[in-house]
């Protein structure tokens, strides 16, 4: 029998080469970020533009989202059904994604079908039909989708939480909109949004695939060179400093669990203490073996999983602890989360810092495996106005994080007096627990975050 008592050591150093990112420019000044990857005969493309839902009028929230639904319903010489048929025939997968900040048009195509697939994509961007019958249909689908999401406790908790912490800002309402705001949108709004925010936008194009650089640039120019891009629109963000941090409950009768989100806004991605904060969150709740999950899942058995995260929109970050717990343990779980948040500000061990750093440094190569992963990493650097070389210094920056910087990051980026607590679940079971545990009367909200 071999001796199994000691974990084996790694076999030497890793030979990890970061992908080479080429920055190309089209004749009409679009930036193209290209990584040649030859493992598979496919090409992953993302054409992004600053046309997210932050440009929606507040009473027409959902306009960017609805525009993205209508835009591929017929373009150029193709009607709606023909266009989807053309993509499907090629085995190409075309999708649009709307965020608060930007709009992504993604395309996965076989290498040999890239030219024609990109041609179809260009038609969507430059010659969408935007017709009444397609608009009516997509608007109706969107309203149904919003109605459907009201059954989803996780979505309700997230959207109510963002409504509270981003009150009076353009991140307040979900990108998909509310039934009341989508109902206000008409076809003219969509056409106006398209003209002002998508057509002639200064696209950024990200391509990872098994394709030649010259062919790529020629193809993009062949189909998009007619566009004269305008300078991106400026939009200012003013953080609401008067967030009413307290307990909120949204009633979901007979729910089997309580969906809980606790947190507040945070600094944007492009901040000095990003790396200490990342290490700190890995200790707190960013991994399976982080404090919050070990406590709530493995120690107490309240939940299937609990985590914390710092996520980043363009103008603001967001800190949130998220879990779904046995409804009888709702207040207990919240108390434990509070304890963990206090704990990370005062008590962090050097071994925890070393462990978190080790994980973040060593798992880094695995983030560059698939085509879409590589694209996402590059896109996020550009999105947050970071240098492309950031990926070259990532591991060193994590390595250099020190214990006192982790504690400082916990104190600077988790503000215990500014936490908003949103619970979605059976109100009759939750309220008595919260009153009993915290001596607080929670505010009761509907599933859009309005006071009842």
């Amino acid at each position, binding site marked *: 029998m071999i001796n199994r008592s000691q974990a084996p050591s*790694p*076999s030497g150093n890793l030979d990890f080469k970061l992908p080479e990112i080429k920055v190309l420019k089209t004749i009409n000044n679009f930036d193209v970020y290209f990584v040649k990857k030859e493992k*598979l005969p496919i090409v992953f493309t993302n054409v992004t533009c600053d046309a997210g839902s932050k440009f929606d009028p507040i009473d027409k929230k959902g306009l960017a989202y609805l525009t993205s639904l209508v835009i591929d319903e017929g373009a150029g010489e193709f009607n709606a059904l023909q266009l989807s048929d053309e993509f499907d025939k090629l085995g190409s997968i075309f999708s649009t994604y709307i965020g608060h900040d930007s709009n992504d048009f993604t395309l*996965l195509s076989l290498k*040999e079908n890239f030219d024609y697939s990109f041609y179809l994509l260009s038609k969507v961007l430059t010659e969408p039909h935007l017709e009444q019958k397609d608009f009516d249909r997509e608007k109706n*689908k969107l309203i149904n989708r919003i*109605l459907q999401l009201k059954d989803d406790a996780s979505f309700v908790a997230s959207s109510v939480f963002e409504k509270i912490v981003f009150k009076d800002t353009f991140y307040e309402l979900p990108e998909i909109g509310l039934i009341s705001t989508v109902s206000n949108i008409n076809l003219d709004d969509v056409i106006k949004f398209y003209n002002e925010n998508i057509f002639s936008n200064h696209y950024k194009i990200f391509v990872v695939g098994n394709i030649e650089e010259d062919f790529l640039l020629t193809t993009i120019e062949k189909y998009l060179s007619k566009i004269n891009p305008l300078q991106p629109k400026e939009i200012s963000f003013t953080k609401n400093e008067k967030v009413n941090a307290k307990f909120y409950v949204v009633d979901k009768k007979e729910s089997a669990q309580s969906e809980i989100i606790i947190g507040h806004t945070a600094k944007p991605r492009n901040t000095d203490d990003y790396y200490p904060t990342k290490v700190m969150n890995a200790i707190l709740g960013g991994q399976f073996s982080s404090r919050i999950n070990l406590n709530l899942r493995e120690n107490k058995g309240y939940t*299937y999983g609990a985590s914390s995260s710092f996520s980043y929109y363009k103008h603001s970050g967001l800190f949130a602890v998220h879990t779904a717990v046995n409804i009888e343990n709702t207040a207990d779980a919240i108390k434990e989360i509070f304890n963990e948040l206090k704990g990370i500000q005062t008590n962090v061990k050097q071994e925890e810092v070393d462990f978190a750093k080790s*994980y973040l440094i*060593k798992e880094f190569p695995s983030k560059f495996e698939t085509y879409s992963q590589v694209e996402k990493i590059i896109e996020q650097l550009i999105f947050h106005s970071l240098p492309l070389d950031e990926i070259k210094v990532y591991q060193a920056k994590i390595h250099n994080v020190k214990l006192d910087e982790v504690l400082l990051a916990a104190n600077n980026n988790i503000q215990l007096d500014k936490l908003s607590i949103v619970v979605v679940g059976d109100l009759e079971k939750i309220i008595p627990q919260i009153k009993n545990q915290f001596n607080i009367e929670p505010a009761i909200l509907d599933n859009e975050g309005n006071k009842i």
Partner: protein
Amino acid sequence: MKSKILSLLILFSFVAVNAQIKKITFEQYKLDNGMNVILHKDNSTPIVAVTLLYHVGSKNEDPQRTGFAHFFEHLMFEGSKNIPRGEFDKISQGAGGTNNANTNPDRTFYYQIFPSNQLELALWMESDRLMSLNIDSIGVETQRKVVKEERKQSYDNRPYGTLIEETFKRAYKVHPYRWTTIGNPEDINKATLQEFIDFHSTYYVPQNVTLSIAGDIDIPKTKELIQKYFSEIPKGTKEIKRPKEVEPDLGGEVRDIVYDNVQLPLVLHAYRVPAQGTPDSYALEMLAKVLSTGQSSRLYKELVDKQQKAVVTGSFPYFLEDPGLFLTYGIANIGIKAEDLEAAIQTEIDKVKKDLISEKEFQKLRNQKETEFYTENSSVLGVAENLAQYFVYFGDANLINTEIDRYMKVTREDIKRVANKYLTKENRVVLYYLPKSMKPADKQ
């Protein structure tokens, strides 16, 4: 209208199907203790996926102990002889690894993805929990609570979350597919510690596992390490039970209503179909694509776009080792009755039964299949899992390269034939999910 040039371009791309697919190479062998090993080398990223497919799922369970296989998946993270409780994930993550596992009716699948210089660590961890898992009351009690919450989160508290459970229990009366992997929490509560120990010594044995490794490896060195860590694990001595129940015909349409916390009605048809890998299964999968893959598919185009009766539609075969189900479903738009949506779905089914699909539509399926092949095998984890599954279910790991030929042999006539053979009224379960507010007073 498309130009002629474009048509030729598309025609060319159809011809190219399959010709371009790069073969996935692998080595396969068996250890003396019966453990199967599959190795695939891919040095493009310095990572390695170490996976173990245990050929045990919920269909191996005692009907009085449902949920056992899945529960065991949780216990496998509770520590082993040389890895104390709570350390498994710490060791994995400290070395830059990610890991997880999942259970289905036929198998339990564990994986770890590591930087490739940590291959030996992964083998040490996996071999330790195979040969000397720590099964005690502390671990069992902890995971009892966690699994209860998993059930609530993934099934009970999710809109339409119990759909598969409610469907399978009506579609099967004899075969163990009648219960789902999460099982009944009461069964786990009743189980004794000895039952868990027996389950491990029966199913978690070398001859019942396939170790499939894909990534940045050196094949001879990897073989040496596998020999070192796994060869001394003794072969299991207990009989591995495989269910022999043959589910009789459904005996007529089964129709039922589930009242749930949802706002929009859902209609589901579940047809009984043959097992995965049978000739008809390939035609059925192509049929599902005709109905619901992409926005130009039949159900989407007709029900979502044209008639606007549904907000979501779908169709997919739930293929399993033993005969499974073919599902079609739709979630109704506001104001549309479940009955109207069902009639519209039925009309689309009747069309594929009556007429051959067009040549153009047929060619589309073939290109979609090619893209799917690449997306399924774009990660080392995907390759490792596919190799293991093809071997365990069909005895031929090389199907990862050749199964696409079976799809390409499917004809338009085959698609029409299987639609007529299996998508019949007497061969299906029809389930409506309706808002609780619609529940009649006498059933409250």
